[in-house]
């Protein structure tokens, strides 16, 4: 027994050692390294889910939505997870096909990346991105998937907020669009705390881009506790998203609809028309009431990610590049609509306001005869009638005289350049600063501009002047081009007499955008102040609190006194009744609403004329400025003026219900009820 007891003592020591080992190891794991395991436990046990904030709506001046949100349940598949499964995810797809009621083969094709031999509907996106399989699932189907995550590994059903456009194609370029934010952009925006999820969208154009920060709100975070299968057990922590503010614009969606229709009709009426724009401003405030560009497109194409084919179509010549807003990016010679600037230039150059001016069929400018419209002499005219009848030669003469005053071909050190500088003070040659991205600045060709152009081009033109244009088939044309190249090479840095004449009637190298022309007319017919037009009117929280009213900045002043402004305005007021637009406005009830305006027909080499009509109404204390431009639309009176007439008819309700009852624009922001609905809507 002694031996056994000795051996038991050995066991005793072993058992105690074992207990000590376990206790020490437990201390080490739980107390010493406890923190480390708490972190790892949190990592394995929780998933962080980004809760996107509801993006603010874009509303018109009465609170009617231009862009609103609808929620859509989207089922997506993580392709990489599926391909890692032994059967390539076939089992999951089969189950999914049963739930969604779609053939397995279709689902399979939709998640296969496009490539040689893989036809539509294949996946055009990144191979690492979750592929949306179905964007119109109902709640029942989504729940079937969400509640049985272990049966659908790699499949998610999420509520996505999708932009909806109640106006359809109306104002698509102005409203802009959303696209998923890139990782780089998100990091730039949020800094280190950025967590890229792929659900964040960013405004890429239009108002969505300019007011992105206010509209997008702040996305929330939800830490969800999950089990081993990834099934959510509960929410551990959550930061609610802060919804974005609504953008109330000064757009009147009814006027916008009228404008879109009129522009579309104008485009159809001119067979060669390849683009058009219409701008309606509140003449008193320079707020934008309607802004349209043709051709248009349906912005719903962006929802849920655009396909590569869709994007290419939008960018192609075949579609007419509908993404480009002709209202702010279309740069065209303004033709006679520009004469408001030329009259002002004459006044500033010292020509009397009440003087009499001879309007011959043509005048000699720098040894060349410049004729007016069809070379018809109009006799002796006041400046008033010069505008009404759209005489060209009076302006040629005045511009040429000023050109010579500046030294002509041998310019003074500091030329006055009255015509160019007056045009600049009308806001031409610089972006209007409207709250839209990527606006064009137009062009005011002065002496400095010529010089810069020559510096950039004379190498080419001098070479051409030697070698000619052998690739041009037409002999006469090739000779003309060669002579032109020689002229450009030897004296291209000089403003030529013809340049000054062309400038005075808005031809040649002068380019303006419809928006520039509209704000110039707004300044002329209101208080003479040049403003930077605004579409955004106010930012409003979803509960109706006004965060900020967006002011319309005054950026300049017309070089005209009140009397002069009224004189020009009065002259323009006779154009639709007695002048160049009389035909287009024949039968229009001028006794009810008197329209003022100016037609413009700008020649474009090798193309049809650009048709312009810049107008305002009512002539006494104007409320609206309407500018219509149709590229390759022919004469101003032919295409643009009838479109403008249709717009006024829509606004004032002539032979139809008025878009703006009483014709007066609202000056009060729409009132929101505390629940976010708009009163009276």
């Amino acid at each position, binding site marked *: *027994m*002694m*031996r*056994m*007891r000795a*051996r*038991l*003592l*050995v*066991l*005793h020591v*072993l*058992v*105690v050692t*074992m*207990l000590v*080992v*376990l*206790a020490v*190891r*437990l*201390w080490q*794991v*739980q*107390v010493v*390294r*406890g*923190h*480390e*395991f*708490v972190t*790892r*436990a949190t990592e*394995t*046990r929780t998933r962080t889910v980004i809760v996107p904030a509801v993006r603010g709506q874009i509303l018109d001046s009465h609170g009617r939505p231009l862009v609103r949100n609808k929620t859509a349940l989207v089922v997506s598949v993580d392709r990489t997870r599926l391909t890692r499964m032994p059967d390539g995810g076939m089992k999951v797809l089969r189950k999914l096909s049963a739930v969604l009621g779609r053939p397995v083969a279709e689902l399979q094709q939709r998640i296969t990346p496009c490539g040689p031999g893989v036809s539509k509907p294949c996946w055009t996106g990144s191979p690492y991105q979750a592929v949306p399989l179905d964007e119109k699932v109902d709640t029942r189907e989504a729940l079937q998937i969400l509640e049985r995550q272990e049966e659908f590994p790699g499949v998610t059903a999420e509520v996505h907020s999708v932009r909806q456009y109640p106006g359809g194609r109306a104002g698509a370029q102005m409203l802009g669009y959303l696209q998923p934010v890139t990782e780089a952009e998100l990091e730039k925006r949020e800094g280190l705390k950025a967590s890229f999820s792929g659900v964040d969208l960013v405004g890429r154009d239009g108002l969505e881009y300019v007011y992105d920060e206010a509209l997008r709100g702040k996305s929330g975070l939800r830490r969800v*506790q*999950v*089990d*081993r299968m990834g099934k959510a*057990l509960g929410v551990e922590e959550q930061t609610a998203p802060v919804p974005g503010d609504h953008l109330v614009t000064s757009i009147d969606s009814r006027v916008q609809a009228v404008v879109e229709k009129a522009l579309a009709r104008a485009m159809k009426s001119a067979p060669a028309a390849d683009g058009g724009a219409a701008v309606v401003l509140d003449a008193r405030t320079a707020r934008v009431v309607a802004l349209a560009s043709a051709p248009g497109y349906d912005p719903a194409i962006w929802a849920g990610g655009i396909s590569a084919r869709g994007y290419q179509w939008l960018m192609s010549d075949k579609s007419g590049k509908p993404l480009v807003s002709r209202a702010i990016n279309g740069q065209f010679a303004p033709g006679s609509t520009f004469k408001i600037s030329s009259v002002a230039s004459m006044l500033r150059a010292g020509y009397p306001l009440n003087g009499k001016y001879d309007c011959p069929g043509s005048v000699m400018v720098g040894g060349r005869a410049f004729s007016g419209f069809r070379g018809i002499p109009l006799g002796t005219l006041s400046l008033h009638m010069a505008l009404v009848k759209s005489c060209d030669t009076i302006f040629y003469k005045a511009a040429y005289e000023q050109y010579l005053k500046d030294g002509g071909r041998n310019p003074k050190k500091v030329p006055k350049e009255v015509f160019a500088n007056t045009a600049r003070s009308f806001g031409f040659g610089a972006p209007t600063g409207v709250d839209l991205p990527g606006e064009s600045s137009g062009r005011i060709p002065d002496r400095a501009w010529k010089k810069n152009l020559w510096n950039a081009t004379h190498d080419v033109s001098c070479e051409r002047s030697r070698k000619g244009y052998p690739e041009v088939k037409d002999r006469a044309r090739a000779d003309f081009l060669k002579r032109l190249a020689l002229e450009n090479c030897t004296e291209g840095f000089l403003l030529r007499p013809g340049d000054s004449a062309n400038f005075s009637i808005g031809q040649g190298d002068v380019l303006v955008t419809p928006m520039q022309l509209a704000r110039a007319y707004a300044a002329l017919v209101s208080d003479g102040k040049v403003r930077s037009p605004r579409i955004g009117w106010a930012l409003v929280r979803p509960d109706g609190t006004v965060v900020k009213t967006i002011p319309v900045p005054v950026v300049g002043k017309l070089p005209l006194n009140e009397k002069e402004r009224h004189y020009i305005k009065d002259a323009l007021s006779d154009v639709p009744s007695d002048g160049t637009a009389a035909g287009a406005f024949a039968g229009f009830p001028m006794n009810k609403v008197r329209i003022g305006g100016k037609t413009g027909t700008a020649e474009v080499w090798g193309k049809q004329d650009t048709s312009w009509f810049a107008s305002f109404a009512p002539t006494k204390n104007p409320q609206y400025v309407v500018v219509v431009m149709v590229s390759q639309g022919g004469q101003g009176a032919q295409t643009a003026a009838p479109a403008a007439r249709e717009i006024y008819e829509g606004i004032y309700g002539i032979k139809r219900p008025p878009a703006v009852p009483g014709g007066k624009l609202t000056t009060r922001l729409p009132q929101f009820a505390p629940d976010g609905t708009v009163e009276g809507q």
Partner: protein
Amino acid sequence: MIDRTAAIRRPSLLRRVTAENSAVRRLDALMLVAVAGLSVIGTLLVWSSTRTWAPGSTGLVKKHILNETLGIVVCAVVATVDHRAMRAYAPLVFLMSLIGLGLVITPLGATINGSHSWILLGGGFAVQPSEFAKVGLLLIIAMLLAQPAEGSDRPRALDIWLALIAAFVTMGLVMLQPDLGTALVLAVITASGLVVAGVRKRWIAALAVVAGAGVFAVFYFQLLEPYQVARFTAFVDPSVDPRGVGYNSTQSMIAIGSGQLLGKGLLGGGQTTGRFVPEQHTDFIFTVAGEEFGFLGSVTVVLLLGVVLIRGLQIARHCDDRFGTLVAGTIVCWFAFQAFVNVGMTIGIMPITGLPLPFVSYGGTATFANLIAIGLLQAIRVRRQSFN
């Protein structure tokens, strides 16, 4: 007259129980308290780890409590049997356990959780004969080695061979299931029997060499199932395959470690609720203790196990006969091995082996077998000749 008959009348039951040298007062109360404590903790942990299986799921806990109640009855019955009489029954018990193991291999056997070691009894109950085999083997080994050779205090060579054969047959049947963990426990029972019985050190050394060669052969000839090899690989380096074999090890460490000093409280363990550790109510139940009761709770479990083991060793030391000492010694080694391997694998110092934690894990047959062993220990203590 009446007084005389009263004098020879047996004392009342209460008197007998409370008398100075009564059997009840000779029970090892501390060990029973420790076993009761472990059982209560085990029940709570089983509840915590199985309640998420289905809403309001209490079926398994109820079954566990039933098993424990039945086990206590069995334990009490065993404790009343004179262990010396049990020596005579040892061959019978051993034979029955072999038959049980044999039945598992026949069509009567059933596979539960990937292990073919069950006999279904119907009504949702099943037995695992390999658990009873532990008791059967330790009794037959104790019986064989209790008889010393003439004029010596060491067992006879023939008895040693018989013991080894008994062990080999039992382990062989268990490996047919296959159940490596139980086979290892049987090996430990055999080895501890030989050690306690006073078998010569050179015999023990020789057996150790043979066993070592056997283990080598098993690996070398790839006799183990691939998953068993993988478990050892993962033990050496859990990062080899953190989603696969290393997963259990990694997840149980995370669960226990995240309990820190005080734990997250009963039912408060996120890892337990999320069922990140597999087999949480059986082999990995210690992770629930670690996460929900923290270091204090898990060390308490280890301490309670220690109380059972140390008291068991004292029973062995104070026993007057070789058979009782052998039985008690082998039981302690069985529990010690199983406890160390089970707790050790959850904290990364032992490889993953399918062994339950004595008195804590869910499992009917194991609970019976463990409580039978406790009954045996108590029976040995109650019938010892000398006190102190």
